[in-house]
């Protein structure tokens, strides 16, 4: 598989770019933030996403979706990264749709996937509990009670947690924190008794929530996949999420870089365009090279996911690790090279820095994924 977009993929990119740059430039995020919008995203735009087949991009056609792959999901994420558009696409259409599609039984798929595709259901994965992404450290308890389970514990950084219609909750049904055995995924109604959701206003002005579960009762039908055996399912779903976030970071890095290079070509100091200074030229060139390498690694990871999710772990670890270091460098250089203007809220560059920081923590930072690669290589 060539590491370039096909004609169809290029057309998908163009239509996504057209919609997103027109309806959701960075000013869209700024407006949502400043107006303290209670939803945190535009429902009207989400409706357009559904109409264009993006909401159900990964959903099989039999459930009303587009039946496309992870490369295509990455294309949408990259465009989202360019304008920082807040969208349920990541949590609902990528992560939750993958969890349901890969782990769901026939009844669960038919109940939820078509509603995701139509844009009428928002869903999200509740996984992290501590300050850092450590999926195996999950300790939210699910104990058997009658025909079902009772869930107790807390989750942090649940993307879209306060607007979701369905929570996919990682819980421990057996074993101790740190063990692969004993993890189970549950489909939980956020309105169920005992669920307490606190929307957390984050640095990047994107949606997130802390959610507490106090003896929340769920029946046996709400188990997604096998009891105690969710680790394998989670590996795949999280890798899909990581690939998608890496693509968002590539779009974000590329956009920040483009804006920065334009600034180097227009800002004058000491009677010269600052882009004439070799100190800045070489840093810009290094950043360009970093972004191109990360773009290729991310494309490789998304293709590996399309080929076989179970065999994509190393490629995904490389992509997410690279995306983290590259985006961090891109936003730091972006602010630095914009000088004082880069520090102002009025200028958009700061928004990119804030979003990059959140993306870095989402589904594991560069250190986490570098560690994963070292382990997989046996040293």
């Amino acid at each position, binding site marked *: 598989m060539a590491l370039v977009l096909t*004609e169809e993929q290029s057309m998908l990119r163009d239509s996504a770019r057209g919609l997103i740059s027109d309806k959701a430039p960075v000013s869209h995020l700024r407006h949502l933030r400043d107006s303290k919008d209670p939803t945190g995203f535009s429902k009207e735009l989400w409706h357009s996403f559904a109409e264009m087949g993006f909401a159900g991009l990964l959903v099989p056609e039999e459930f009303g979706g587009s039946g496309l792959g992870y490369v295509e999901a990455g294309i949408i994420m990259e465009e989202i990264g360019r304008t920082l558009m807040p969208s349920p696409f990541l949590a609902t259409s990528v992560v939750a749709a993958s969890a349901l599609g890969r782990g769901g039984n026939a009844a669960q798929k038919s109940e939820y996937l078509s509603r995701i595709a139509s844009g009428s259901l928002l869903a999200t994965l509740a996984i992290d509990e501590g300050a850092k992404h450590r999926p195996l450290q999950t300790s939210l308890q699910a104990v058997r009670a009658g025909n079902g389970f009772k869930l107790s514990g807390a989750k942090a950084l649940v993307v879209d947690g306060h607007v979701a219609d369905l929570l996919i909750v990682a819980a421990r049904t057996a074993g101790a924190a740190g063990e692969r055995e004993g993890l189970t995924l549950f489909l939980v109604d956020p309105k169920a008794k005992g669920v307490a959701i606190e929307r957390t206003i984050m640095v990047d002005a994107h949606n997130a929530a802390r959610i507490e579960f106090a003896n929340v009762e769920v029946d046996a039908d709400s188990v997604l996949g096998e009891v105690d055996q969710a680790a394998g399912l989670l590996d795949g779903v999280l890798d899909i999420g990581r690939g998608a976030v890496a693509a968002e970071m590539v779009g974000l890095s590329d956009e920040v870089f483009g804006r920065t290079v334009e600034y180097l070509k227009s800002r004058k100091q000491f009677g010269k365009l600052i882009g004439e200074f070799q100190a800045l*030229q070489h840093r810009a060139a290094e950043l360009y090279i970093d972004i191109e*390498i*990360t773009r*290729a690694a991310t494309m490789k990871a998304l293709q590996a996911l399309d080929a076989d999710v179970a065999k994509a772990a190393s490629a995904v670890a490389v992509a997410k690790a690279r995306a983290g270091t590259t985006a961090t460098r891109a936003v730091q250089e972006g602010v630095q090279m914009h000088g004082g203007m880069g520090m102002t809220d009025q200028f958009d560059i700061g928004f990119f820095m804030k979003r990059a920081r959140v993306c870095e923590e989402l589904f594991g930072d560069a250190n986490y994924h570098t560690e994963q*690669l070292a382990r997989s*290589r046996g040293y």
Partner: protein
Amino acid sequence: MTDSKTSDSESADLETFRNETRAWLEANCPPEMRKPATSDADVFWGGRNAKFSSEPQRIWFERMRDKGWTVPDWPKEYGGGGLSAAEHKVLRAEMARIGARPPLSSFGIWMLGPALLKYGNDAQKKEHLPKIAAGEIRWCQGYSEPNAGSDLASLQTRAESDGDDFIINGQKIWTSYANYADWIFCLVRTDPTAKKHDGISFILFDMTSKGVSTKPILLISGYSPFCETFFDNVRVPKANVVGQINRGWDVAKYLLQHERAMISGMGERGVGRPLGQIAADTIGTDGQGKLDDAMLRGQIARFDVDEAALAACAERAVDLAKAGQAHPAFSSAMKYYGTELNKRRHEILMSAGGVDALEWESERSRQGARPRAWLRTKANSIEGGTSEVMLGIVAKRILDLPGA
């Protein structure tokens, strides 16, 4: 974006080609040739005086040559394999799968060949390309001069017209393996009055011509892969100029792109044992099997991430070129990153080897193979254009920054 949508019959043909290639390689690549060369003496460079270091090396070379696979993507009429870009990619992947080493290493293949294919006339292609493909003539590159390094276009070696010939006088430096080469491709000044980029010609001549002499340069690695090369009234037919007289800079730049691509791929990417395991040999592991030096382990892991990412980028560069979407200066980006990464690799190897990696002359250390290789890599970011020159090219030609 134009050709990546292959039709079903094309992909079926490619699958057939893959299966046939895999079977042929299995049957024809000797087991000894399925691991990397351990020293430069173990690499086959071809040429009039070439000797095979082993029987498997000879067998492997001759079988590949007979299929045209020393230069798989060159046209068959010039001794190539006539493979499409997609087939060539399959062949490379299948060779990598079994760790097959290249049957022939050659500046003729990596640098001169592509330039001749683009700029050479019919006679030049017919004369030189088949001999490159068959490993009969070994080439060297006469580019740098004592006062023309990064600023290559200021070169002073002059070629003066004398009827149908040029008379060449001057000195080159850093001529790789000039003392073993049969022919040289050389940049000479044919118009001293023109602007510095405009008076240069690209010319070919035999190293046994009267007036050519070479002197090896001893490097910090203790080896002499480079020479000083002197020209004292060397007579060369004007017919040996590639492209137009005084337009040699175009050829030179095109060739440099290939040279940079070659150097960026020089690292031992993806072959041999992982760095982490090599380090474990000397440093050991803790109870969990982790390298017993957390900081070095982190350095190695970061290296592995960057190396895997660069490999993806190299693959993408080929795919972009095939799709007609490549930026011509992108090889400078790859050259910069590939050489800096290779230097990092060897710094890690030295650190992992500790005291053991400091031995310079002993059987145990294979005559200091590790420290000598480490020192050799320091040239990677200098030869073929320094890292700083590469960044300047990216800034100017790709980013279009002002005054660069």
